[in-house]
């Protein structure tokens, strides 16, 4: 890949998705875009760049998608799901006892492993949730991964990463080499396409937001902006769950760490400086052609 092509891609990704690649991520681009060039029938990354410069919005969309889609697995990192079961849900069951409803947002729902892991965790709580209305909204930048999430169909390889065998037996149905999560669990998750750079206030207010391993792609200002808007999309006594490599510390005071629970945060009550309209780059039609 030539340095001008790399610079072009960096800028394009920054503008369209907020993905902020440092100067040494050529390998990452190559590992994601070489398969895409084969799929598009072009000779390599140089030719992909030519097509984008020539105005191919569909290639732009596919490049952004390929660069921002991540491998994920069921109950990834385990700890956040223990927090969910042992800390978040017990607190909310008390705090929402009269309302009996809880809204959960997976802000980088990807191919569904995270929202379905939460759905399974809820099912495992059994009768404690009888009579409760619990919503799980899964959003992602990529329509393609959302379609996969909706289908709830996973390969033999995918169901063996992080999913205890007892849960596979309990909640999945086998179809040859593929496994599909039960209609009941699929029915617990709603899917919406969403770019976190854009206004998301229409999603309403949440009690729990899982926003893991997505903010790492953004530069500092963008992170601060998103934290501010996440705080406004959350109940004052809600919970924010970040990825293992992420933190709010040093970036914003709208959330504060939950004592002794790594990756878990709560609104601090501090107000973020409010950007007009709530969006960072309202004019960018991020996923062009969609």
């Amino acid at each position, binding site marked *: 890949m030539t340095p001008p092509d790399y610079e072009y891609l960096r800028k394009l990704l920054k503008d369209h998705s907020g993905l902020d690649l440092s100067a040494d991520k050529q390998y990452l681009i190559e590992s994601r875009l070489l398969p895409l060039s084969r799929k598009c029938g072009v000779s390599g990354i140089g030719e992909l760049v030519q097509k984008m410069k020539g105005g191919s919005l569909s290639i732009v969309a596919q490049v952004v998608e390929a660069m921002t889609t991540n491998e994920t697995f069921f109950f*990834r*990192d385990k*700890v956040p799901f223990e927090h969910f079961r042992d800390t978040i849900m017990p607190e909310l069951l008390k705090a929402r006892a009269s309302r009996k409803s809880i809204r959960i947002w997976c802000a980088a729902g990807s191919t569904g492993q995270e929202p379905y892991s939460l759905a399974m965790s809820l099912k495992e709580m059994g009768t404690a949730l009888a009579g409760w209305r619990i919503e799980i909204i899964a959003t992602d930048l990529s329509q393609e991964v959302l379609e996969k999430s909706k289908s709830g169909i996973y390969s033999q390889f995918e169901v063996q*990463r*992080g999913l*205890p*065998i007892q849960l596979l037996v309990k909640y999945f149905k*086998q179809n040859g080499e593929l496994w599909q999560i039960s209609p009941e669990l699929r029915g617990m998750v709603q899917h919406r396409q969403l770019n976190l750079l854009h206004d998301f206030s229409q999603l309403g207010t949440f009690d729990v937001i899982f926003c893991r391993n997505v903010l790492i792609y953004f530069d500092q200002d963008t992170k601060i902006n998103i934290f501010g808007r996440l705080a406004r999309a959350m109940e004052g006594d809600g919970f924010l769950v970040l990825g*293992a490599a992420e933190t709010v510390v040093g970036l914003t005071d709208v959330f504060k760490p939950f004592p002794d629970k790594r990756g878990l945060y709560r609104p601090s009550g501090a107000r973020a400086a409010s950007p007009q309209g709530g969006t960072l780059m309202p004019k960018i039609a991020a996923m062009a052609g969609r």
Partner: protein
Amino acid sequence: MKTCLVVDDSSVVRKIARRILEELDFQITEAEDGEQALEVCKAAMPTAVLLDWNMPVMDGYEFLGHLRRLPGGDAPKVVFCTTENGMDHISRALHAGANEYIMKPFDKDIVTAKFQEVGLVALTEQCPI
């Protein structure tokens, strides 16, 4: 020291499994069928057993039944590792006291994940970029 008994009639599979499990800090013993495996367990219970299903002499399912009836035989974590990938086999294995189940083909990620499930390998958190 964590020990794992690898039971498979294929020496190639045993070798691959040994390499992966040694990297996860297990000391490995091997057996070619259920009967040999049972002898190993009678001499000294391993921490874990990675267990094929279809083998000559005594298959993995029968071995598991015998193992769980031995004194101290409920202690080892038993992880099936087999081409028997149907839900019926998985359910039977769990009923018979298996702790986890790997559907072949397997790789290091799957073995690591499954041994994390049974609590014998520490969790590693993965940073996506």
